[in-house]
């Protein structure tokens, strides 16, 4: 079935409490870390090959090593719990079921980075999870794992949870820091990077919930052992949140390397497409990654079986590939209208654009508008080229990657499903029937 490094004890009654979590081996990673030097802890994370689990996949150990350490200046570890990428719901699961796992990772990570105060920035919609975390934090303080002189080690740490207010953009690390400072979530120009000037202009590392939680098994088993799991540069296990037209949507912890076909169809995982239907398309890693038609998600363009790894899903670049991203795996069946879905995502990005950069602010608006008229039968052939052109003009011209995130789904949808867009132009009456979906691009099993 595959090792469950994060979720092994998730179904144990009371695992959200300190006592039960401790009984099942909890806080051993902190005890181990406190006996190492901070540099040794960073080294373990480097050896593990852990890549950021929020979506960008940047090597976590490397990110940690970038942290500036000027004398006398406080440093911060900030956990990015702003989970808002459509299709992604694994961090919510982890925090609400295993709050102490995240807290333990935060303590070990803060120690490694030399932080005296650390924060968990959680999206405002998850206030109920904030309360769960606060309760667990209080338990950790009471047990002497937070506060002054943790377990007599001489290391002290305060940990706080901070809510957002409803803004996808605050999942971008610099917008998150702006929000933590009490401002609008407008991303900052980089450089300077948060590692040099982050929260309150002080050196800061921002990591995803799952990345920080994974520090715990890495320390418990050792970075080298962790790196033995997985394939290539995709080491360890990852949480995937599967949704859409599946029989068994939900959270799955996979050793990286499971074949995509097995993940979709096996009863051990998603159990196939619901209602006996055919798979039409997949967005494999959250709405921002390129959509792929069935034949290209199951196999690469070269005909190799695709695996749930960073490298395999990226095989083919954006021409024939996609990205592992956040692990938000959205499956669409044959009744799905790709044009409608693309419009829906474009509406999302337009709504969530912070508005600083003209290409994004105006561009996402145009994408939504033009896709709306294509979906509703008022579009022209020129419109199809127009949205590709607008998407191209957003890419690379913005302060933060929300621009790319808005552009990529549109470019990919037209690249792989152009005939469906054209059908909306040439057959507006059929295309605008309620529930209408173009089936001419389906590769039947």
């Amino acid at each position, binding site marked *: 079935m595959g090792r469950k490094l994060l979720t092994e004890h998730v179904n144990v009654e009371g695992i959200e409490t300190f006592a039960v979590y401790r009984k099942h081996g909890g806080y051993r990673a902190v005890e181990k870390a406190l006996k190492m030097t901070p540099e040794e802890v960073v080294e373990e994370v480097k050896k593990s090959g852990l890549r950021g689990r929020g979506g960008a996949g940047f090597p976590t150990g490397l990110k940690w090593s970038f942290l500036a350490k000027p004398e006398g200046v406080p440093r911060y570890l900030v956990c990015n719990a702003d989970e*808002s*990428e*459509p*299709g*992604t*719901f694994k*961090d*919510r699961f982890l925090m*609400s*079921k295993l709050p102490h796992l995240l807290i333990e990772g935060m303590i070990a990570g803060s120690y490694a980075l030399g932080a005296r105060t650390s*924060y968990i920035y959680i*999206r*405002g*919609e*998850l*206030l*109920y999870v904030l*309360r*769960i975390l*606060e*309760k667990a934090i209080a338990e950790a303080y009471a047990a002497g794992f937070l506060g002054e002189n943790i377990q007599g080690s001489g290391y002290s740490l*305060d940990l*706080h949870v*901070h*809510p*957002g*207010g*409803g*803004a*996808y953009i605050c999942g971008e690390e610099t917008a998150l820091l702006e*929000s*933590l*400072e*009490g*401002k*609008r*979530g407008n991303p900052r120009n980089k450089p300077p990077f948060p590692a040099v000037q982050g929260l*309150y202009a002080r050196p800061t590392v921002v990591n995803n919930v799952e990345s920080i939680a994974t520090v715990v098994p890495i320390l418990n088993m050792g970075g080298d052992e962790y790196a033995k799991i997985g394939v290539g540069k995709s080491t360890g296990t990852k949480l995937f*949140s*599967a*949704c*859409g*037209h599946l029989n068994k*949507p*939900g*959270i799955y912890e996979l050793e990286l390397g499971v074949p995509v076909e097995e993940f979709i169809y096996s009863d051990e995982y998603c159990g196939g497409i619901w209602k006996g239907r055919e798979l039409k398309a997949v*967005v494999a890693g959250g*709405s921002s990654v390129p959509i792929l038609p069935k034949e290209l998600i199951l196999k690469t363009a070269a005909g190799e079986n695709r695996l749930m790894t960073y490298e395999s899903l990226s095989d083919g670049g954006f021409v024939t590939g996609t990205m592992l991203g956040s692990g*938000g795996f*959205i499956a*669409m069946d044959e009744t*799905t209208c790709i044009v*409608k*879905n693309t419009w*829906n*995502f474009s509406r*999302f990005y337009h*709504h*969530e654009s*912070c508005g600083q950069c003209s290409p994004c602010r105006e561009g996402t608006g145009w994408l939504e508008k033009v896709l709306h008229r294509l979906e509703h039968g008022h579009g022209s052939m020129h419109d199809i080229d127009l949205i590709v052109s607008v998407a191209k003009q957003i890419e690379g011209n913005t302060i933060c990657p929300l621009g790319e995130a808005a552009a990529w789904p549109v470019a990919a949808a037209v690249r792989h499903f152009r005939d469906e867009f054209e059908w909306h132009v040439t057959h507006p009456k059929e295309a605008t029937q309620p529930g209408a979906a173009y089936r001419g691009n389906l590769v039947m099993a």
Partner: protein
Amino acid sequence: MEPTTAPAKPKFSPAAQAEIKRLLTHYPDDRKKSTLLPVLHIAQAEFGGWVSPEVQDLVAETLGLRPIEVYEVSTFYTMFNLKPVGKHVIEICRTGPCMLRGSDELTAHLERITGAEVGGTSPDGVFTLKEVECLAACGFAPVVQVREKYYESLDTEENVNAMLNELRGLVHRPILPWEETGLPTSLQNNY
């Protein structure tokens, strides 16, 4: 029944004031502004589910900020309601994975049942319908949020009715988390 018109000079309850004091200790002394978002959440919960200009001025005064610093934040983040709302604000997720599992149908159904239109309040003042973006509940779509609680798997009439009955049955406003001692608001979710 909580007021839906703005009181002329609102004041935070003692429990809220204590909570704000606690929150201020989380940040450096010269960084009170960091508490703006959590305090706005407190204000919205205390004053009828929305934040009037007077309430926002109260927040500014409490934290030593200029009013504009509060206005620019309250208008940026989608959770803050800037106009009066009904007793229950039903926030319906409308993003892709929920749309794939019937959020459009759910929205139409809720409009019919409650008598409210999206963006507005029902004539009896009980329900306000609001469309929101991805709530991180995609595996249990379609999904709705009311205050802090998530209602998931709303693709059956049974589940929708259970939610509406629960909301209608709330005679008094729910106890605010900082009014309780120690316990988080406990909620039934799929996880």
